[in-house]
């Protein structure tokens, strides 16, 4: 309290001005969207919340499994050809959820496509054909001096394994007619129908390697590789993904041939592998290959070098560390990383979205108006300071939303709007706490100038403590919850921080400046802190100052001076 004299209001104000100007420039720079990104409930669209559940019943979903699921879902969503579709995760461990947002009109059937379990299976290759203009050269076998239990395999000509980054669909690609014969094309036998489909299939077209539809393991299959570089005709599956008990990326002991993926199968899988590998090894390429199919697309198509009898195998093909890890992840989790349960589907039409946005804005405007009226009536001049502070806080909040919407894709939902409206009250509360402290000190017969300082030093800690609790609530809500609650919590946390910034860098210095103005310290009725109104006798100095003023006014001209100087101090507060 002793060092309250060292206030430098201008410094804080300039700092805030720089911050505000910076945010505004960033938010309102020409050529970009100047409005916050709206959530689906405000712009219309479909949101599906999927909850991953560990497939084998026990244990939490691991981060790798979650990542793998998201990857698969992203692939499926991209397959829909909606350019703005979004896949995000929330939470972690047992409480994680995958949220798919598709803006625009209602989409029926979206959820079915999303919730299907990704299916991994191993199928013998019957035909393989590269769709690249210049066929990739047939790969050479990499001999690795490993134990016989190792499956020597080389990646198929085209399969670049799961390392391929998620195919980004060209927006126009899938738009025309997604129901036409798109892979996976299946038939119970290797029929003429399937042969025709194979012949007609053009895997260089992006819509043909979007995948997303799990294949039926017991049927024959015509499909593309994941990156569209080759097409395949495959036999029914001989190993299901569930039969892979483990997959690890490893460097071979002698270090030759880059990274490899070591596989372990369960008893049934080992037996099937032994049978099939024995059958395939003597055949000509591509018939000595098998395809690893994930969600209807061939992820990799290595060939057998020798029969694999021991239930463990390794795939090697000069993989990089990352490639090997990705393939191992596909093998380990790809089949059933998790069961995806549809937790919630919400579909909001654009009309309803617009209505809700309108309601939110009206509520916000009304709430702000009520608070402004109350503050002005009760605190007068200080009320103006409070109102301008609120405007500053609103401006900061808006720009931060615009910026975050553009950079990290933060969407403003109806709950977020509600959070912002509620925060009007919380922000104004800070001013009330400060102003009441000033008034308390005036009641203790301090001069206004002193009361503005001592009031602040007392209010400051209260403000920080109370805002910290609010922030704590928001942060905990944010990290623990999902969906709507999260949007609300984010807004609340953000506005709490902005509240502190505005109170320290704006309200406080403005009041300090006001305390220097003669009009304010005379404590007229319009200041909102006149000693008379607070029920105390004005101090002797104050009386003298008023008398002095009255004398001068009398000498010059009788104008309603209170109002005149009132506007001057308003100018100061802006």
């Amino acid at each position, binding site marked *: *309290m002793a060092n309250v004299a060292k206030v430098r209001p201008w410094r804080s104000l300039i700092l805030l001005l720089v911050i505000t100007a910076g945010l505004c420039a960033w938010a309102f720079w020409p050529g970009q969207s100047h409005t916050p990104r709206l959530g689906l409930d405000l712009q219309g669209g479909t949101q599906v919340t999927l*909850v991953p559940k560990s497939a084998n019943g026990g244990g939490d979903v691991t981060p790798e499994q979650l990542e793998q699921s998201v990857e698969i879902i992203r692939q499926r969503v991209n397959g829909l050809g909606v350019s703005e579709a979004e896949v995000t995760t929330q939470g972690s461990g047992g*409480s994680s959820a995958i949220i798919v947002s598709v803006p625009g009109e*209602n989409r*029926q*059937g979206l959820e079915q496509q999303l919730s299907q379990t990704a299916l991994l299976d191993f199928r013998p290759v019957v035909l393989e054909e590269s769709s690249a203009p210049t066929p990739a050269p047939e790969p050479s076998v990499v001999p690795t001096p490993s134990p016989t239990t190792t499956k020597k395999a080389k990646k198929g000509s085209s399969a670049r394994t799961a390392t391929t980054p998620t195919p980004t669909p060209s927006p126009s690609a899938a738009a025309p007619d997604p129901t036409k014969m798109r892979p996976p094309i299946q038939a119970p036998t290797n029929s003429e129908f399937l042969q025709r489909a194979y012949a007609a299939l053009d895997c260089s077209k992006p819509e043909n390697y979007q995948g997303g539809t799990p294949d039926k393991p017991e049927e024959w299959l015509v499909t593309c590789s994941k990156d569209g570089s080759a097409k395949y005709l495959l036999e029914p599956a001989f190993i299901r993904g569930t039969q892979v008990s483990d997959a690890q990326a490893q460097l071979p002991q002698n270090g030759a041939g880059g990274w490899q993926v070591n596989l372990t199968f369960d008893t049934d899988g080992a037996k099937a592998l032994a049978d099939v590998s024995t059958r395939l090894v003597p055949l000509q390429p591509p018939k000595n290959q098998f395809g690893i199919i994930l969600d209807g697309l061939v992820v990799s198509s290595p060939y057998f070098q020798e029969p694999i009898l021991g239930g463990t195998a390794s795939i090697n093909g000069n993989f990089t560390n990352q490639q090997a890890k990705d393939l191992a992840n596909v093998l380990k989790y790809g089949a059933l990383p998790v069961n995806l*349960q*549809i*937790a*919630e*589907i*919400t*579909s909001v*039409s654009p*009309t309803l979205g617009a*209505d*809700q946005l309108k*309601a939110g804005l*009206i*509520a*916000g405007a009304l*709430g702000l108006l*009520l*608070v402004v009226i109350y503050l002005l009536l*009760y605190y007068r001049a200080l009320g103006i300071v409070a109102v301008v502070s609120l405007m500053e806080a609103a401006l900061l909040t808006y720009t931060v939303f615009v910026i975050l919407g553009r950079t990290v894709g933060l969407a403003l939902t*109806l*709950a977020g709007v*509600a959070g912002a*409206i*509620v925060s009007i*009250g*919380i922000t*104004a*509360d800070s001013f*009330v706490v400060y102003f009441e402290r000033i008034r308390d000190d005036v*009641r*203790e*017969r301090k*001069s206004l100038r*002193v009361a503005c300082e001592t009031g602040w030093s*007392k209010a400051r800690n*209260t403000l920080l*403590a*109370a805002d910290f*609790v*609010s922030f*704590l*609530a*928001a942060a905990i*809500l944010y990290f*623990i*919850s999902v*969906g*709507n*609650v999260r949007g*609300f*919590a984010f807004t*609340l946390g953000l506005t709490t921080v902005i509240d502190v910034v505005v109170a320290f860098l704006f309200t406080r210095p403005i009041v300090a400046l006001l305390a220097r103005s003669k009009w304010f310290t005379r404590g007229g009725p319009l200041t909102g802190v006149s000693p008379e*109104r607070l029920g105390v006798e004005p101090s*002797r100095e104050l009386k003298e100052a008023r008398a002095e003023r009255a004398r001068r006014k009398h000498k010059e001209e009788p104008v309603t001076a209170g109002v005149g100087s009132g506007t001057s101090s308003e100018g100061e507060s802006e």
Partner: protein
Amino acid sequence: MSKPTSLASRLYRGDVSYDIVGSRKRWYTVSGIILLLALVGLFGRGLNFGIEFQGGAEFQVPSANCSVESVRTAAQNAGASAPIVTSLGDSRIRVQTEELTPEQSKAVVDSLATTCQTTAGEIKIQLVGSTWGAEITKKALTGLAVFLLAVTLFLTIYFEWRMAVAAIIALIHDVVITIGIYALVGFEVTPATVIGILTILGFSLYDTVVVFDKVKENTRGILGQSRMTYSDAANLAVNQTIVRSLNTSIVALLPVAAILFVGAGLLGAGTLKDLALALFIGTAAGTYSSIFVATPFLCQMKEHEPAMKALAARVAARKAGQERKASEKAAKVVAGGPSGSISDDVASDDDTDEAAAAGVAGAAAVATETRKERPHRQGPRNQPKKQSRSKRGKS
């Protein structure tokens, strides 16, 4: 406006003082009754959970071309058994059903679209699996537990553990009341309601922190005097912050009221209304509890401390002595002589002392006008205390 303000300042100076801490039994009874009602509601009627918690399907269809009855028939024809059909505002009809598979839901949507002559795209659909509701509830409860722990820790560090306990008790009080009212009235509990209730946590604590901050200020160095007990000082703090608490609550409630009004009026139901309703009840309860529950409870705990007991004994002894003197003095005041000695002493001292005197010697309050004007005090607050005590010791 001038009347409440002057009341405010009299409250501040302790001229008018409501003995809130002393009459805690009354407030506990009031809270007890409300809590009992809330609990009866909670366990008797139970909460009306929305589909988000139970699982189920909800459709909202523009109602320009159809009635509630025709919509109900359409939903039933499409295979929804016992749909709950209500109209929202005047432009939408809401249909709630049991959990539906996506295929069933599609059938309902198509049927509704035909009945109301609109397109499937215009219908709001929400399908919630029943396990998800359990998940949400679990998360909300986890959040609550983590929050309570964190806040208790913070308040213990910032204030002391007794204040933390009192604050948490007030918090639970508010939340139970809010939930209870929901149960009693039968409002639907949706995730938005949960958001509202979680926000109340922050709000209720905000209020309590403001009051406790003043209590902390007033009770600093309280053991170094013998004029007021902890409860007296805390009671003064409550009285001094009543106006502030009212103002913060009004300011906080205004926007909430706006949401409530617009949410209920324009949309009929939904996120805005559910949220605002919970907030409105909770904030009101929060203001009440920080004054009438948290502080008396805190005092009860504090008065159990040996040091505070000793203080209370000292104060009582001193009071007995002073009452004698005060009655003598009061006689003098009535006789006409302005009593300078007490009021002078008071004004020069810390505000706790000021109020103590005001509380102890009721007659001194009348003497406000006789106070001399004095220069502003800017030095450390507790400085004059020791001297004043020794002076008083002699007298």
